[in-house]
């Protein structure tokens, strides 16, 4: 476990964004007082510490630059550093507010060992202008404590005791009240409590103390909570020279996909969602994801999908000074039976699925839709358009067709408006069809009407709305509309709102 502590995250952030020469301090409101919360090296040399009152510090050092704290900006910065750390391992967790945890087990050898990896991170972070310390230890607690309070170095499992004993109790990530309570009875260092009898300690303070101690000592396992879900299949490639051209990116992609194909085939899986992560030399990340309607393994098809995705980006594909690393991860994998070749019907479906994938990759998955039928009498809910990727195998239409013939359902319009549009309508009798109506500023004289078809509102829900009487009407020029009156006149007596007319769709 590697713990990275960015000692002066907020002051480093301000120093990076604009020129600050004088000593810098960040202040924030704690309770009713404005206190210093972070200081940079120059301010520290002046003897300033976090926790001092701002007014007092200003009086002491008029040249001090004091900037209000911005927790959101700090969190965003930490997030982007965490993103950048993905180049070392997919298991990166936030150790808020100013630290990160990297599980480097199994990845260190890619960089030529733990030492080389730490040197690589250190070099890059120092160049980016951050003060930091890094410690590697067997457990999360030990790495955290060593990075902040101990000697930043590498420790192996079993060294926890000698590492932790001299450190203050605050290194165990305990609540400040617990730490001060322990200090009152003379327990100040971790070494003071390691060998104490356990039950009185738990009774006097809380179970948390021993739990944190056990976790730091490696006696109890503490799971890492990675920021991003870990992909089941990953292939990555680092480049000696940064690449900038789109063609190169696609070539690398094909090579990575070919490597993934191997792993996928071995376990009989196919990819449903694939992400390409490009690491730019300046630390920024580009993520591109594509989805597929059926489990996919073929590198050629994966390449085609990403080519569409890149084409849709056009100018947004900004390589800057180039990408120095690429990673292809399968985010969602599904069992996929071995390919069958030469089945007439299947071939056609496969072809159609490929078209859906290509269109979705270029236009966005929500723009390519399939219609499904739902079991509802409400016209808006009865049919829906869902993204073709996510469409269920059973679209519900066969059941709908049976229902339509059984119940002799009244005709439904060819095109349905997204939401019913209010119209001004004049009816001869209150419950009858309209005589004429005005929709989108045009007046329509009704010459024929069919109806009403009463569709009750969703009375079991608060937002169900009133009952609707639907009419199919035809105007003088032969245009056919689907109108409804929301609300019934008989409810007027009970204090309901007056019925209003809406136009909901058009017939051929």
């Amino acid at each position, binding site marked *: 476990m590697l713990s990275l502590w960015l000692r002066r995250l907020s002051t480093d952030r301000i120093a990076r964004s604009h020129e600050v020469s004088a000593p810098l301090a960040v202040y924030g409101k704690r309770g009713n007082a404005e206190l210093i919360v972070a200081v940079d090296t120059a301010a520290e040399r002046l003897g300033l510490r976090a926790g001092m009152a701002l007014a007092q510090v200003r009086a002491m050092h008029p040249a001090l630059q004091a900037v209000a704290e911005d927790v959101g900006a700090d969190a965003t910065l930490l997030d982007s550093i965490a993103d950048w750390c993905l180049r070392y391992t997919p298991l990166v967790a936030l150790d808020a507010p100013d630290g990160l945890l990297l599980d480097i087990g199994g990845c260190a050898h890619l960089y030529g060992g733990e030492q080389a990896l730490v040197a690589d991170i250190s070099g890059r972070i120092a160049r980016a202008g951050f003060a930091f310390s890094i410690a590697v230890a067997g457990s999360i607690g030990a790495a955290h404590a060593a990075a902040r309070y101990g000697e930043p170095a590498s420790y192996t499992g079993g060294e926890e005791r000698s590492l932790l004993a001299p450190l203050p109790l605050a290194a165990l990530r305990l609540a400040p009240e617990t730490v001060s309570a322990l200090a009152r009875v003379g327990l100040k260092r971790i070494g003071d409590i390691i060998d104490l009898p356990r039950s009185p300690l738990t009774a006097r303070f809380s179970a948390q103390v021993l739990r944190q101690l056990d976790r730091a000592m490696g006696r109890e396992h503490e799971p890492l909570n990675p920021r991003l879900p870990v992909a089941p299949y990953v292939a990555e490639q680092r480049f000696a020279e940064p690449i900038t051209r789109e063609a190169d990116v696609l070539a690398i992609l094909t090579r990575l996909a070919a490597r993934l194909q191997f792993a996928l085939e071995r376990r009989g899986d196919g990819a449903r969602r694939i992400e390409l992560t490009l690491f730019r030399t300046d630390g920024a990340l580009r993520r591109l994801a594509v989805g597929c309607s059926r489990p996919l393994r073929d590198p050629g098809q994966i390449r085609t999908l990403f080519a569409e995705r890149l084409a849709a980006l056009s100018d947004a594909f900004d390589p800057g000074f180039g990408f120095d690393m690429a990673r292809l991860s399968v985010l969602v994998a599904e069992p996929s039976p071995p390919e069958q070749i030469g089945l007439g019907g299947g071939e056609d479906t496969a072809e159609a699925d490929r078209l859906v994938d290509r269109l979705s990759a270029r236009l966005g998955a929500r723009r390519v839709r399939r219609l499904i039928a739902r079991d509802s009498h409400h016209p808006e809910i009865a049919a829906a358009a869902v993204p073709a990727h996510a469409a269920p195998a059973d679209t519900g239409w066969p059941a709908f067709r049976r229902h339509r013939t059984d119940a002799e359902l009244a005709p439904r319009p*060819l095109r349905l408006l997204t939401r019913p549009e209010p119209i001004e309508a004049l009816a001869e009798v209150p419950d009858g069809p309209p005589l004429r109506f005005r929709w989108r500023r045009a007046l329509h004289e009704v010459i024929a009407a069919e109806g009403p078809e009463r569709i009750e509102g969703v009375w079991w829900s608060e937002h169900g709305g009133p009952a609707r009487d639907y009419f199919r009407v*035809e105007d003088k020029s032969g245009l056919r509309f689907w109108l409804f009156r929301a609300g019934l006149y008989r409810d007027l007596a009970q204090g309901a709102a007056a019925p209003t007319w809406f136009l909901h769709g058009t017939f051929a």
Partner: protein
Amino acid sequence: MLQQLRQRLQALQKTAGLESDHGALPLGIAPIDAALGGGLARGALHEIAAASEAHLAAATGFALGLAAHAQGRLLWLAEDMALAESGAPYGPGLDAFGLRPEHLLTVAATQRCDLLWAMEEALRCRAVHAAIGELRHGAIDMVALRRLSLAAGESGALALLLRGAPAGDASTAATRWVVEAAPSFSAPSPERRGEKENATRLAVELVRNRRGPLGAWILEWSDSDERFALATHAQPVAAPALDRPHRKVA
């Protein structure tokens, strides 16, 4: 060598929309099939325009009726604005129109170029039997139209363009239709109000045909056969031009 080049040139010069290697799609309406030379040409582009913006639903119905003849996967491509303005295709309604909603794939595009690209991709795909592109306003780029015709010609899919108003511009389309909703009663009268409505009726005019004569017909949707038929008991707005050769043009 020269012969080869000539042959290649000839292949390149093939007029889109005229080659009949994909066969025709008979509509089952004798006079229309006769005018079209056997039926609607597969692998060609056909333009269907509404007589005016208000008649768009009628034009939609006609386009869907034609696409239903192609039997198979159907793509509906439209711009976001068009869907917001006149509504999205509604599954239960399509179902009554002889189209299987499960075969329909809708594509919403933000820009016209995206729509044309998607339509071309769809037409090149062998699994798609028909694609309807709703391009309502404005002129369409000639190059894009020709690309669509060629794409349809390659795969034999039916390419239909749905337009909001009749367009007078040059086009590579094999046929061009103007569709208008027709009253379902031959003589509209106020006494008919409240009576059950008759079947859907459309006035269809063939205004451009690269293979034969033009004409105008009134079609009626027949629920039992799930297809259009000539409305025999209705007065046609205009008899087909072929039927009155004796009449002099004023």
